[in-house]
């Protein structure tokens, strides 16, 4: 260590502070050895459960874990920042990073004030009217339901008091296989 007289301390102290702020350079082999010792079981007889990711921790693993966490965090942020719920009759307004894992909330709504029961059927629920009943809005005029769907193209229709009806605001198919055309929903990525 250097001498510390009052006149030089302040300058050296500043240097020391700077040095302390820097990461010490450590030989990778030494660091690996230290980490192995730190995470090794205390004795061969103690069967403390050890989590796999800790056992194999090393500097490259730590870096890899950091990168993976950052990527997962970025993915989460992307989902959080997605547009709010898309109405079903809007084509292609959902633009998020394309991934098979992306599920987007889509709100279906239908104005049917005199209906007693409304549900939605389509490719997303095996055309089963029991699985997605719609709820009447507070003013009693509109029926709504929100569904989370993977990216894709879906045929669907409303079931209003046992009768099929297409969504008046959505594109139609020209499909006359069974006498009633469907509406089409696209949940898009970009």
């Amino acid at each position, binding site marked *: 260590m250097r001498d510390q007289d009052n006149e030089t301390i302040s300058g050296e102290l500043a240097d020391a502070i700077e040095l302390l702020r820097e990461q010490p350079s450590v030989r990778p082999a030494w660091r690996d050895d230290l980490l192995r010792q730190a995470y090794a079981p205390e004795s061969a007889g103690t069967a403390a459960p050890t989590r796999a990711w800790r056992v194999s921790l090393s500097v490259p693993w730590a870096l890899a874990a950091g990168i993976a966490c950052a990527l997962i965090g970025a993915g989460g942020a992307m989902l959080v920042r997605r547009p709010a719920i898309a109405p079903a009759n809007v084509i292609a307004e959902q633009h998020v990073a394309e991934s098979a894992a992306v599920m987007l909330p889509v709100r279906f709504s239908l104005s049917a004030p005199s209906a007693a029961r409304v549900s939605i059927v389509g490719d997303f629920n095996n055309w*089963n009217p029991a699985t997605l009943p719609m709820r009447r809005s507070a003013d009693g005029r509109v029926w709504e339901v929100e569904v989370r769907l993977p990216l894709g193209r879906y045929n669907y229709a409303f079931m209003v008091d046992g009768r099929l009806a297409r969504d008046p605001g959505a*594109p139609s198919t020209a499909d006359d296989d069974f006498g009633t055309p469907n509406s089409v929903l696209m949940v898009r990525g970009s």
Partner: protein
Amino acid sequence: MRKLLLMAAGLGLAAVTAGAQERTLPDKLAPATRATLERLIDSARTAGIPSVPLYDKVSEGVLKGGDDDRIVRAVRTLARELSDARTVFGPGAELPLLSAGASALHAGVAVNDLRRIASSSGAATDPGTLTTALVTLVDLVAKRVPVALATSSIQSLVDRHASDRQFSELRNGVEQDILAGRAPDASVTARIKLQGITPP
């Protein structure tokens, strides 16, 4: 690293599985119809045609009260249209595009016209926008726009690299015009002109 990647992939897979529907044939089908449909769907799958839309067609048919023969016919037709669409778009085409292509063929668009739209430079940039273009095309046909006019109008938009928004505007505009009493073909011609494209 590999473990971490697998872990991340596993998280994503869980989300997909939560939203995916298990496809099975409905119970209401007669045993003979069920056997026919199973054979049909199996051969389609073997030929590389996605089976999900075929199962969906069966479920749709059962809900809509179609008799068994009609359901089998519809599934057979859809399998052929999906196969034609796959020939047009290539084996790597994703399901939404294949389904939209099959739907266009079902609406009366010729395979060659579908191929022309698909080979446009505007179509090459984004399969999603091409899918939107085909959904719009089918919607126009459903609105009684003649198939030839609807096809050439969509072709001209695709050639000009039209965006999803432009296709949506065309569809919404034509719908408003029809509600206001305008003829579907006159509406399409005028709307295409409005978008700065020479009418076909």
